[in-house]
């Protein structure tokens, strides 16, 4: 028995004209079909995680364990350095570090979103959106293994956030949107220029120290007004604010959404212009 997967009388038409490239149309089509085929991206992301921890006893729970160790160790050290009571400082540090790790992992992973799928890209015509989505799903699995730790720390320290904590969900959604845009943008950029990935690595390291991750923003005193210009801080604060205090100020949200729109616009423009070149870059 031979199967005809989609019986179409005329069959789909594939036209590619270098003189009349229809770039915008094809990029939109790529995004639409890519999102429609999210199940493929999810399956590939699942395989990525499974293969990464193949044969290990704890599997992806190593992520949870190593994060937990880091939070507790740094919590004890810095609460002593900053002379803050551990029960006050630990919830702050747990939320900060876990969200920061997530952001930093997404950005680093985004650099290889396309080059790691080289084998598929050069053999099978698939929407490139699938590869970016794969990267997002992969990091969502990682997030699912570290975010619950926040709850544990909160319970242990007796810090109970109010009902405003649900506002962290839109914050996480904003991070997912950013993750997709960054995966597409950095994925393409790093496929073309192989020096970008190490640069991104250094930038993320620097960003860790200049963003209020282990230190509280209040320590900056009057220089705090500059903080909304730090995209890492504002995006992080949309999740951290609702969990620690009653929510993030409007200015933070405006800045985070602004930066998100900026990344999306840059990614989209780049994608429209250079989509056809990706197969030659990877």
């Amino acid at each position, binding site marked *: *028995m*031979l*199967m*005809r*997967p*989609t019986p*179409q009388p*005329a*069959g*789909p*038409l*594939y*036209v*590619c*004209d*270098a*003189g*009349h490239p229809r770039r915008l149309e094809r990029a939109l089509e790529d995004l639409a079909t890519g999102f429609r*085929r999210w*199940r*493929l991206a999810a*399956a*590939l992301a699942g*395989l990525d995680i*499974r*293969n990464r921890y*193949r044969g290990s006893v704890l599997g992806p729970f190593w992520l949870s364990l190593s994060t937990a160790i880091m939070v507790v160790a740094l919590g004890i050290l810095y609460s002593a350095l900053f002379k803050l009571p551990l029960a006050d400082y630990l919830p702050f540090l747990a939320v900060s570090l876990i969200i920061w790790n997530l952001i930093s992992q997404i950005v680093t992973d985004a650099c290889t979103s396309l080059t790691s799928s080289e*084998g*598929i*890209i*050069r*053999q*099978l*015509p*698939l929407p490139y959106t699938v590869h970016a989505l794969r990267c997002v799903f992969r990091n969502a699995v990682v997030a699912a293994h570290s975010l619950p730790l926040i709850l544990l720390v909160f319970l242990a320290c007796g810090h109970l956030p109010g009902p405003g904590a649900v506002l962290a969900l839109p914050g996480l959604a904003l991070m997912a949107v950013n993750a997709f845009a960054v995966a597409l943008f950095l994925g393409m950029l790093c496929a*073309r220029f*192989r020096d970008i990935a190490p640069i991104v690595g250094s930038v993320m390291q620097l960003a860790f120290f200049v963003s209020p991750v282990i230190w509280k923003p209040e320590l900056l005193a009057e220089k705090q007004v500059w903080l909304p210009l730090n995209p890492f801080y504002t995006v992080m604060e949309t999740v951290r604010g609702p969990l620690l205090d009653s929510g993030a100020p409007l200015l933070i949200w405006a800045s985070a959404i602004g930066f998100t729109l900026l990344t999306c616009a840059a990614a989209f423009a780049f994608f429209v212009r250079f989509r*056809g*070149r990706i*197969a*030659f*870059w990877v």
Partner: protein
Amino acid sequence: MPHILAEGLAIEFPLYHVGARSLKKRLLAKTPLRLRQDESNRVVVSALRDLSFGIGRGERVALVGHNGAGKTTLLRTLAGVYEPVAGRLEVQGSIGTLIDPAAGMDQDSTGRENIMLRALFRGLSDAEGQAMAEEVGRFSGLGEFLDVPVRTYSAGMQVRLSFAMATVMAPEVLLMDEWFLAGDAEFMARAQERLERLVSDADILVLATHNMEVVRDWCTRAIRLDAGRIVADGPVAAVLEEAAGG
């Protein structure tokens, strides 16, 4: 109606990770044939140059030529992997590719998981994926090995699984590279029958091969590529004879 139409098709591979300067020295030493620098001073390989041809319904086309003549690149371009830098390409009809047997295969997954993955790659639903797993399992004759990671398969078993997965479809335009001629004898007999049916069901076949016997048996038309250009295009006998004569 299924058809393929190419007008002035060109594909160039940029060589980004080669120093243009050192390459230039090397190029001056030997006469450059297909390496050149484009307008923005990038070094590029002209893989396909100014190809124009039309393939209509019912045609069985063999792509012949030396290694590196551009056969596989042309197949991938027809499949939609590479976008041409110049010219126009039109392919009407559902496309099936048998280019790389291992494409999209996960070595750590079992045979069955790989089949389901392939179904997702093709955009099939769960039920269609299940049906495909049944059919592939039966045809490949892997039996209990279907639930063992592909990593542990012998080369022959891998070919059988790839072949079964790749051929469980009935595309209108079939693009095929010659890898499928590998495999053990008993399996090849069955494979041959399946391929022949696939080929005869497809409206258009484009086959890249070095095996002239296959070309004579299956194809009605041959296109000879040399250094990315079409040097001969016509009935199989004429094209093959010309090469033998020249």
